[in-house]
């Protein structure tokens, strides 16, 4: 079945499976063919006429996206006529484009800008005024549509038809009056709408959430894995390391997600920003007076408390499934293996529907590492099984409870309620990112943690696939620690104080 064809691409022999288009082959060989309407995750439309290539022996140029590679074909992307076709195709695309780059969010990552610099650089021959079209249309929760900037590549229309199968967008009118739009009285409402912003090669669709917040050239992107649900999409997190601010999350092509991600996942940068983070550790003295302290001080305080009780019976762990496998391993190695703690509970939303799935990417299990936590529990010889165990915690009789809260409180509707009920217990040490914990005056002890974009590690997704976190941003909470670091500090303290 694995028939292959061999053809020449810019003089180099290329072997690809039969049925591969020249565009796909070129992408595999890292030969850049300019294109707008072709997208690896969508069907071929062939409407932008930009990816012209020369096939030796054929009279006219052909579009690479719809040209199947055949044996013995001699394709050239850099002949004079191909280059000239690219150049003037670009001028056609820009005939009615408004050039409002200063106020366009796409500037800096715009196909038109990039291609003008690489294949354009013409003097415009257009003397007629530009056709004016509707701007700033509200077409969805997170979408602003500017039909003037649109070059009618139809990627968004195909996305709506093929990926989400909602078909909410269409091209209306003809010729230079043609515009993209929704059908009268309808809006795009699904959970995947910001993908339209990503696939739009120009600034026609912009994201309301990111709109005007920052110019993209100030941002740095680092690969990560989305912590929003158990699908574990590959993503790029965009932040500005100078100001330690995060701005957006975008999908990166990956096994779990293909080219897309959901809008819920895109919100996972919010809990990382300073304004909602717990920034300082605090602890409560013997007289019940709560005071802020260094993270090292809070850890030392916790270590002292643990050494003053019998850990096997008096210490309990309450763990959320949003941390990495490496962190769980170090946590259970210390608490379960070294200290003999038996009371390990899971922090899960009581009302969650873990098996829910929207058919595309988003799952009902809003924890990135449910499976990793189960594996770690089994490995530590503890009873596994996904269940919410707040009642068990309340009645476990432990004197010290270490509550490792979910990283993203937004995915836990009962977060505040659970925190409140935990504060009723004797002593709970919260290891958390949530600033709300610091605002709760009844919380006695808390240690600020690092977010998913600030540490290294792996998640195990619902299917057992590994999602890596390996290029950390500098944390806005300079003293933030991950579980492994806190555990290492606790261990050190015990070593230096002679107990075990």
């Amino acid at each position, binding site marked *: 079945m694995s028939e292959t064809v061999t053809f020449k691409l810019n003089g180099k022999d290329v072997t690809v499976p039969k049925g591969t288009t020249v565009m796909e082959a070129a992408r595999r060989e890292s030969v850049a063919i300019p294109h707008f309407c072709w997208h690896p995750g969508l069907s071929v439309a062939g409407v932008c006429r930009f990816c012209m290539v020369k096939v030796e022996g054929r009279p006219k140029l052909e579009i690479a996206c719809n040209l199947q590679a055949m044996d013995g074909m001699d394709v050239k992307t850099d002949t004079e006529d191909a280059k000239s076709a690219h150049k003037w195709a670009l001028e056609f695309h820009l005939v009615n484009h408004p050039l409002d780059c200063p106020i366009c969010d796409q*500037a800096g990552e715009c196909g038109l800008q990039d291609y003008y610099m690489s294949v354009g650089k013409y003097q415009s021959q257009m003397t007629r005024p530009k056709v004016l079209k509707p701007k*700033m249309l509200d077409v969805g929760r997170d979408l602003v549509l500017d039909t003037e900037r649109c070059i009618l590549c139809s990627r968004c229309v195909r996305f709506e038809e093929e990926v989400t199968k909602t078909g909410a967008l269409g091209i209306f009118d003809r010729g230079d009056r043609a515009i993209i739009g929704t059908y009268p009285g309808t809006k795009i409402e699904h959970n995947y709408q910001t993908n339209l912003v990503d696939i739009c090669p120009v600034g026609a669709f912009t994201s309301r959430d990111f709109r005007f917040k920052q110019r993209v050239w100030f941002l740095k992107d680092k690969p990560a894995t989305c912590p929003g649900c158990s699908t574990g999409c590959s993503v790029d997190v965009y932040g500005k390391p100078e100001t330690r601010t995060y701005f957006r999350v975008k999908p990166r092509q990956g096994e779990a997600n293909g080219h897309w991600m959901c809008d819920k996942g895109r919100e996972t940068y919010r809990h990382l920003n300073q304004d909602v983070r717990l920034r300082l550790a605090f602890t409560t003295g013997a007289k019940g007076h709560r005071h802020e302290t260094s993270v090292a001080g809070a850890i030392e305080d916790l270590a002292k408390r643990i050494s003053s009780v019998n850990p096997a019976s008096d210490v309990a762990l309450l763990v959320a499934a949003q941390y990495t496998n490496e962190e769980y391993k170090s946590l259970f190695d210390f608490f379960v293996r070294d200290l003999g703690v038996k009371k390990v509970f899971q922090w899960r939303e009581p009302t969650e529907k873990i098996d829910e799935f929207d058919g595309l990417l988003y799952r009902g299990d809003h924890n990135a590492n449910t499976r990793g936590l189960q594996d770690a529990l089994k490995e530590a010889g503890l009873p596994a099984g996904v269940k919410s165990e707040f009642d068990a915690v309340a009645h476990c009789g432990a004197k010290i409870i270490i509550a490792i809260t979910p990283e993203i409180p937004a995915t836990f509707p009962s977060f505040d309620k659970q925190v409140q009920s935990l504060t009723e217990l004797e002593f709970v040490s919260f290891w958390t990112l949530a600033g709300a914990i610091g605002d709760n005056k009844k919380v006695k002890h808390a240690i600020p943690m690092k977010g998913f974009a600030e540490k290294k590690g792996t998640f195990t997704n619902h299917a057992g696939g590994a999602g890596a976190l390996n290029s950390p941003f500098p944390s806005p909470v300079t003293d933030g620690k991950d579980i492994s670091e806190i555990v290492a500090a606790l261990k050190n303290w015990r070593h230096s104080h002679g107990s075990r």
Partner: protein
Amino acid sequence: MAVVKVAPPPHDSNIFQAGWGYITTIASGMWKTLVIFLKQLVHIEKTNTLEWPEQPSNYSDRFKGKHFLTLRDDGEVRCTACFLCATNCPADCIHIEAGNHPDNHLEKFPVRFEIDILRCVFCGYCEEACPVDAIRLGPEYAMAGTEGGKWVYTKEYLAERKQLSGGVVSVKDENEKHPLLETPKANRNAKQVKSYVRHGVH
């Protein structure tokens, strides 16, 4: 070769003999000083010295002094918050926060536009980067202040400080409005904007 004419060296001066030239040069210099002193006693208005700051000294319009933001003819700042000045700034002293303008014709505008003048090196790169002639460096050079002074210039100060006598309307202003966009019914109060008078700036 260019020749610069200078006074002969004192020991070559020939009024008396070599060596005495020093004394004659000093004496002629003191005489000059005395003459100017006496002239100024009688005609103080003819002197070149300015009694700054009571008497203003105007620099050329091309001088790169204190920044200002230009205005549209309806009184709104021209800046579209494109961040090109902030990108181009080698001293990293421009801080902009962009927002959505209620008037759709403007769409994007600076909610905050601040220049940390202590960081600024007055290179004028912001002026050069600006695609809409919204920021310029003006002829104001007196920027001294006390410790408690305001060293971060706000948008309001940059566009509307007293010295600009009402603000500077950019010559680039065009009145063309997009026909398909609505203008809000309650139009902004059109401010009366006077033209930029060079000598009014101080």
